[in-house]
């Protein structure tokens, strides 16, 4: 990583060399699904369907097989690796979704700094709070989180400063975040090609996702490449009121040069910028409300001819937890507008309702049942597939997940 400073590299080496053997923590989770779906051909198979499991992928399916490992490296460093398989003919049968080293010194006088180096999610989604960047409220995350899981990954260095007010007798904690990153220049290509989708299929670091039309040479998109040698950045702020409310703000700009193309993956550096806001409120009697909003734009400029896609999505979730039972309902709205024309191929407009019940009886098992309906108007369906632009897709999905964890 060219972004690593000499000082950080020196500290990292000292830490690694001086590390005594310490026990690491591991997790292994198998998530099996039973699905009924009338979804159009999924975006994962180069279709314009919004669901992960379409009508050709019903019955018993592998939701996810996930392995995670956290290894302390000395007193204040640790390494974390997340690997998953999704059983959908990706390039690598098992691949990484996150892998990073964290520097987390002890707080002093109520202030703590943290550094992460590697590949990880930006601190953005307030619903993806369970292990493996999953949402505990539903099986399928919101359109916003689905897109983040599909296209966005920080491959770089992130720094955070926490003011731990709750440790000083106050009711608030504050956090500032800043990061520089690379290797995410294609981010935006999926929004332009198939728009938002609702799915829990996170793109792996060396994997691929579907393309808008079948291309025998380049059937899938690869998202984690550095194309223009220009680092991107994001800055964020978070405020917490005790453990009851969290407000999260993030500004993201990958600073890509949209005139640069990478022939080996047949894609451009997509200049993608967005602002994201999220609010989560929890009450003492088990209610949770999560509001999320995303607003941004992405560009390419083949031969200097700029094309822009404006995108936006909003999400509102309400959940009620009673002991080990939880019911959640969520509404998503999403929109992509290409060059100011909502009827252009590449634009879309849609919304989705999700209703889920989950049963979380202990540290091993989690069961969930989810009904999801997505309505979308996608002009590209006419151009690419000869289908009507409008589609109403729905699925009923049951998930049984078994989680094992331990240390070694």
């Amino acid at each position: 990583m060219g972004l690593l400073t000499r000082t950080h590299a020196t500290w990292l080496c000292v830490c690694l060399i001086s590390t005594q053997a310490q026990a690491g923590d591991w997790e292994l989770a198998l998530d099996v699904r039973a699905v009924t779906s009338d979804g159009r051909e999924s975006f994962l198979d180069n279709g314009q369907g919004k669901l992960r499991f379409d009508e050709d992928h019903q019955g018993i399916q592998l939701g996810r097989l996930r392995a995670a490992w956290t290894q302390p490296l000395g007193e204040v460093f640790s390494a974390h690796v997340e690997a998953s398989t999704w059983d959908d003919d990706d390039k690598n049968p098992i691949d990484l979704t996150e892998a990073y080293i964290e520097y987390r010194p002890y707080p002093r006088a109520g202030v703590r700094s943290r550094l992460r180096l590697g590949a990880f999610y930006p601190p953005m989604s307030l619903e993806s709070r369970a292990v493996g960047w999953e949402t505990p409220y539903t099986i399928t995350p919101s359109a916003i989180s689905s897109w983040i899981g599909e296209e966005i990954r920080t491959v770089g260095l992130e720094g955070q400063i926490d003011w731990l007010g709750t440790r000083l007798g106050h009711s608030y904690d504050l956090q500032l975040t800043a990061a520089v990153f690379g290797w995410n220049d294609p981010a935006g290509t999926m929004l332009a090609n198939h728009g938002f989708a609702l799915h829990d299929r996170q793109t792996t670091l060396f994997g691929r996702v579907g393309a808008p039309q079948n291309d025998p040479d380049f059937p899938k998109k690869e998202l984690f490449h550095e194309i223009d040698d220009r680092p991107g950045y994001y800055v964020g702020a978070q405020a917490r009121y005790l453990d009851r409310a969290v407000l999260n703000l993030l500004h993201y700009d990958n600073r890509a040069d949209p005139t640069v193309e990478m022939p080996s993956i047949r894609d451009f550096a997509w200049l993608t910028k967005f602002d994201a806001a999220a609010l989560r409120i929890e009450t003492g009697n088990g209610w949770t409300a999560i509001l999320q909003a995303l607003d941004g734009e992405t560009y390419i400029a083949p031969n200097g001819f700029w094309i822009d896609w404006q995108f936006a999505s909003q999400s509102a979730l309400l959940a009620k937890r009673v002991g080990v039972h939880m019911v959640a309902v969520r509404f998503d709205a999403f929109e992509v507008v290409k060059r100011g024309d909502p009827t252009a191929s590449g634009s879309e407009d849609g919304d989705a309702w999700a209703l889920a019940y989950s049963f979380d009886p202990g540290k091993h098992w989690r069961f969930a049942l989810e009904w999801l309906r997505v309505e979308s108007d996608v002009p590209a369906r006419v151009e690419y597939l000869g289908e009507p632009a409008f589609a109403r897709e729905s699925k009923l999905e049951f998930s049984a997940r078994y989680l094992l964890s331990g240390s070694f």
Partner: protein
Amino acid sequence: MREMSIPPSTIRLRCATAAITALLGCTSLGHAGPLVVTAWKHDGKALAGAVVTVEAESPALPSSPPEHATMDQVNLTFVPDVLVVPVHSTVQFPNSDVIGHQVYSFSSARRFQLPLYRGKPYPPVIFDEAGIVTLGCNIHDNMLAYIVVTRAPWFGRTDASGKWTVPNLPAGRFRLRLWHPLLNEPLEVERPIDAGAGEQRVEIRLSRSLRPAPLTGRPHSWDY
């Protein structure tokens, strides 16, 4: 508890903040007697778990002898949530969870760090200064607990009915303090007793509501 002759009592009450209302009542019986403290929330319900300390101002009395206490970590929670110990006490911090914890305090009364561990690898921590020590885990930010280190000869926590009792408080001048981790304001009640008091009753009703209690029952695989 120490036996002393009890002179007629006078009661003086001082609140550190004007927003707090405390009600005192006493009955002079001419000899040492029990002290009964009752704490009420703003809404009139009993305030359970409040830490009450009673220090002797005149005559000066030594603090309680040091104790060997334990602050455990179970299911990503400190147990108990509040520990009250005399000065010079030692506290052991076992980790009963499978996963590691990294305990710290940056409170002025006692700064310390216990590098990532499982089980009981470290010797107990000594607390030589009075004050409130806030505990955290550097890995799991939702873990929060307190150790109240006191020089008071008498200390304890109110029960479910908001009561805490000293069976036999001698005569003298005392300072009573009440503290709760969810208190929105500091509270200090000073209570001199000249002599010969019988049963002393102190009733404290908060003038402001408490902060919301920490959420419980969320799956441990969630962040906070």
